[in-house]
């Protein structure tokens, strides 16, 4: 099994380790609930070194990305700006979701999911054949995400003055290189913070400094409850190759203009848009006790659907889920939990924003 450069640190912190797509990763360091609450109220850090960094360089890098992904990198006008997008197949199914950072001129950095690494690289390599560019998956990198209302202040304490000044004024969804550090103001928790990519040789020092600055290590368990409260999609659960962005609440990531831009999957997606989709992704709040989980059946007068991700929300103190349901479904449904139908309310996610409940009731 693969280990990240922080593996020994996790063991030293008594992490419970699990197999995450072939990576031996910390699920929690004692209590997932505590860790969740620390990120909502203070600052926590995640080892996300298993994620897949890909550097794209060359004159045609931009033209290639305009073909490869459904969002338009032409929106990235200033150095360091980031873009969230889906990479589609010809049938408009989602191969993966990713963030593209515009470094400068003809240089883009892409961060993809760990679980889909192999197929992503194969697909991107195949599609790039007729473009003049280089693809590099840099070896020996590590990545830490620091998230929470106090995350940035605490990170600033461990940076040198020059770096600190540079990132302190950086806007959300931007990134910059500061020496060997690549610092992005992005994340997967619904809180402010940074994601830092750096050479593996320096990651233990940074991890230790952050701990000393009062940033708690957080496992992948809390990462999932945090992202679900923030209604951020999880690849493989909320969408996959059989689902288009229009069926999983990711319409906003599709750039239809300019119409001449012929991204992969556009034709199929356009057809689906014109014909109308059958399913939508909604938020569910369980009315009673119990916990919603992926794959549970959703029942309503408008037809059946299914829970794509479900969990107990520590912030709301009740169970929440994302579910794919018929478009016509109203604001009530039932979910089958261990053979019993239980009432749930349909809401517009996200469930939590900056530590507070924020879901919208449907009429």
């Amino acid at each position, binding site marked *: 099994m693969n280990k990240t450069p922080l593996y020994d640190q996790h063991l030293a912190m008594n992490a419970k380790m699990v197999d995450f797509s072939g990576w031996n990763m910390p699920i929690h360091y004692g209590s*997932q609930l505590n860790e969740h609450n620390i990120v909502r109220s203070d600052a926590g850090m995640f080892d996300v070194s298993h994620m897949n960094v890909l550097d794209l360089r060359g004159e045609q890098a931009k033209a290639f990305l305009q073909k490869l992904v459904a969002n338009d990198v032409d929106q990235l006008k200033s150095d360091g700006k980031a873009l969230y997008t889906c990479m589609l197949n010809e049938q408009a199914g989602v191969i993966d979701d990713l963030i593209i950072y515009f470094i400068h001129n003809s240089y883009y950095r892409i961060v993809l999911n760990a679980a889909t690494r192999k197929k992503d690289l194969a697909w991107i390599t195949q599609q790039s054949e007729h473009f003049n560019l280089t693809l590099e998956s840099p070896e020996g990198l590590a990545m830490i995400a620091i998230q929470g209302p106090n995350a940035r202040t605490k990170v600033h304490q461990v940076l040198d003055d020059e770096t600190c000044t540079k990132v302190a004024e950086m806007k959300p969804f931007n990134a910059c290189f500061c020496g060997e550090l690549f610092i992005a103001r992005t994340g997967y928790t619904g809180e402010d913070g940074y994601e830092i990519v750096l050479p593996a040789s320096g990651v233990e020092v940074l991890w230790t400094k952050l701990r000393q600055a009062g940033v708690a290590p957080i496992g992948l368990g809390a990462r999932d409850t945090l992202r679900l409260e923030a209604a951020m999609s999880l690849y493989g659960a909320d969408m996959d190759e059989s689902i288009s962005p229009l069926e999983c609440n990711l319409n906003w990531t599709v750039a239809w203009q300019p119409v001449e831009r012929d991204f992969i999957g556009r034709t199929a997606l356009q057809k689906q848009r014109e014909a109308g989709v059958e399913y939508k992704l909604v938020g569910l709040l369980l009315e009673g006790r*119990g916990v919603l989980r992926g794959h549970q059946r959703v029942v309503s007068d408008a037809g059946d659907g299914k829970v794509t991700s479900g969990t*107990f929300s520590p912030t709301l103190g009740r169970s929440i889920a994302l579910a794919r349901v018929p478009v016509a479904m109203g604001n009530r449904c039932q979910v089958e939990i261990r053979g019993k139908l239980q009432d749930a309310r349909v809401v517009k996610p996200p469930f939590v924003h900056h530590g507070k409940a924020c879901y919208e009731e449907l009429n």
Partner: protein
Amino acid sequence: MSNTPNELFYTQSHEWVRIEDDGSVTVGISEHAQALLGDMVFIELPEIDSELDVGQDCAVIESVKAASDIYSPVAGTVIAINEALEDAPETINSDAYGEGWIFKLQPASLSDVRELMSAEEYSALITEDED
């Protein structure tokens, strides 16, 4: 390495059983099991007076991570349930062998209980798991 008290009996499915002075037995889940499951957020207890077969699923605990069935370690009748867990399921995490008990049974036969795994056997089983 998880704590496995010597005076208790254990099952393959990670329940522990304590024989009380009055011949009844108390059932809970092991420290190893609670650590695997993580923070508990919900419990569904068995009904008092229900007759259970050995291995029958009779309760459900849900952690943040997953739902898990609890199986009756021996045949018997449910004589008490730990209702305090309904409001504080996390007690199973903090005190698996004490306040985190789940239900009490009047067993059909105490010799069934003595045939369950000893602490030593159970430790060997979970050591394999933990490696």
